[in-house]
């Protein structure tokens, strides 16, 4: 096998089963790729010894016919997931050195199914950001470059995860998505990212950002690999009271179902003023692909779309300000000594939280404070219901919805933005699905004139990830996206 890094997870599984390759061989190739792509700063911790041990155990299970769904497949883990015995920091100074004594349910599921852990991946601090630039470990770099060769962000918050998979430094990776943190980086890095229905994947052991919005999901290079990983990581978990006790259908079986007879909605409100012409053209192309494959395209209206972002920027910071109250210098992580308890709290939190996290905690504290709760928080929760109702009525007539994944392609690292709101607009197409709890997939559909990937997004009914995989497969086949990033492992030019 000449090029282990170019195998899909599905192909690698077949080659492992046939004995054409071994799990230690595959893991060794990926550890080499991790090292080769180290300048991209995608990994914040590499667990090479553990990976080799896990790969050896996988090989034994393959031999004895006990292989799990992703047996022997090298997986990277967003640093937001707690991994037993491996430092887990949410890429924040305040969790410096925090080594959990327990394993998140999602990663435990992946290891149970034979996944091999390569290490922890860079992300925005506490998953708050859209460019992976708020990380305490510095920015992760996108393996794609435009014509000018400038370093680009991989998107965020799961930037390191998306960049590592795109750069062939992980075959699969976990992400979390609170407002687009899986789908936007997937689009920026030219790979497939799925935010499942709220409740599909357990949140237990994942560092909480906004608990009513957070969902874990898979990153992969192909739609089939994504379905495979989703099948391995999802499932009901009594340890997360919001985890859904809903049966997970056979997602691999959904891949070849096609879209004949499906009704796909195209929301009029997703045409934004000043939208990139190339993004619009790609969206229209996506509609044509689905029509050619036998789907019926239907114009729909989601009238409250423009209010999703402002509602999100009340609800998410409010929940964050509450969730992040636990970082107090007493129980774990950083502590700045002071004479009084209050000064110790305030000093620790000032030193440990970065600027964006502080900003969001302050906004959240403000909108929840006496006298403002009704005007901001309750108002946002009412608007959230209207947004969900928009989707509910759309799904009475359509089976899924097609939109662009992001308003633009990846932007340069360090781009100067005076106004935090400008950064927030990155998530304009992705945030509504979090507010409504819907599954959403982003996948690459083409390159812009600068040679950078652009993605489409498919939104589905709650718990209907299967249809997203059917539709995603059709788009993947039609788009035949075969471009590869310049700064991938094994791609030295």
């Amino acid at each position, binding site marked *: 096998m000449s090029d282990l890094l170019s195998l899909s997870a599905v192909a690698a599984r077949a080659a492992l089963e046939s004995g054409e390759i071994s799990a230690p061989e595959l893991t060794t190739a990926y550890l080499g790729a991790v090292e080769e792509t180290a300048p991209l700063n995608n990994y914040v911790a590499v667990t090479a010894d553990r990976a080799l041990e896990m790969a050896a155990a996988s090989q034994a299970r393959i031999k004895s016919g006990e292989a799990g769904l992703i047996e022997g497949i090298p997986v990277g883990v967003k640093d937001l997931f707690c991994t037993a015995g491996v430092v887990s920091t949410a890429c924040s100074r305040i969790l410096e050195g925090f080594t959990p004594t*327990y394993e998140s349910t999602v990663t435990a599921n992946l290891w149970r199914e034979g996944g091999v852990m390569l290490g922890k991946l860079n992300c925005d601090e506490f998953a708050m950001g859209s460019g992976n630039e708020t990380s305490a470990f510095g920015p992760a770099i996108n393996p794609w470059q435009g014509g000018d060769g400038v370093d680009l962000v991989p998107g965020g918050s799961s930037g390191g995860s998306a960049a590592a998979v795109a750069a062939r430094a992980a075959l699969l990776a976990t992400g979390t998505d609170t407002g687009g943190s899986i789908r936007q980086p997937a689009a920026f890095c030219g790979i497939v990212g799925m935010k499942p229905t709220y409740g599909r994947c357990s949140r237990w052991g994942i560092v909480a950002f906004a608990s009513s919005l957070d969902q874990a999901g898979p990153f992969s290079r192909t739609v089939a690999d994504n379905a495979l990983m989703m099948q391995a990581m999802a499932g009901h978990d009594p340890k997360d009271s919001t985890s859904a006790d809903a049966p997970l259908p056979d997602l691999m079986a959904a891949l070849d179902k096609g879209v004949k007879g499906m009704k796909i909605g195209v929301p009029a409100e997703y045409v934004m003023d000043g939208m990139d012409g190339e993004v619009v053209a790609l969206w229209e192309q996506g509609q044509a692909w689905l029509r050619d494959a036998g789907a019926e395209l239907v114009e729909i209206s989601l009238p409250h779309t423009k209010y999703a972002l402002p509602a999100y920027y009340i609800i998410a910071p409010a929940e964050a300000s509450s969730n992040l109250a636990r970082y107090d210098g007493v129980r*774990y992580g950083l502590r700045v000594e002071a004479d009084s308890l209050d000064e110790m709290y*305030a000093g620790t939190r000032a030193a440990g939280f970065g600027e964006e996290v502080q900003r969001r905690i302050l906004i959240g504290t403000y909108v929840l404070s006496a006298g403002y709760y009704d005007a901001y928080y309750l108002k946002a929760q009412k608007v959230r219901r209207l947004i969900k109702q928009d989707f509910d009525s759309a799904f009475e007539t359509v089976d899924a919805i097609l939109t662009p994944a992001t308003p633009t392609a990846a932007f340069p690292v360090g781009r100067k933005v005076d106004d935090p709101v400008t950064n927030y607009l990155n998530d304009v197409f992705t945030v509504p699905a979090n507010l409504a709890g819907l599954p959403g997939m982003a996948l690459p559909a083409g390159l812009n004139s600068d040679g950078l990937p652009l993605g489409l997004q498919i939104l589905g009914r709650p718990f209907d990830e299967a249809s997203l995989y059917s539709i995603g497969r059709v788009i993947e086949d039609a788009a035949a996206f075969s471009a590869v990033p310049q700064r991938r492992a094994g791609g030295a030019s």
Partner: protein
Amino acid sequence: MSVDKSTVARIARLARIHVPEDRQEKLSAELSGILDWIEELNEVDTENVEPIASVTGHSLPRREDVVSDGNRVDEVLANVPETASGFFVVPKVVE
């Protein structure tokens, strides 16, 4: 909606984050900008709309009221900055 410097100081105190005076001005501008943008929500008629509590509509499951976990002092204290005799240690709070 404008958040002035004294409001920044007040919410920073509520959030237990020390914000030095020379950063309050910038934060006041940033937070005001964000809140101005959020004001857009006032365009939406939410008369007779109930605030949403759960997107899935599932009610939270209940379990037997029995001890299901515990006795993990070492694990709980494994990452604590300062401990003594199996307790968390904080600066003195009672004179």
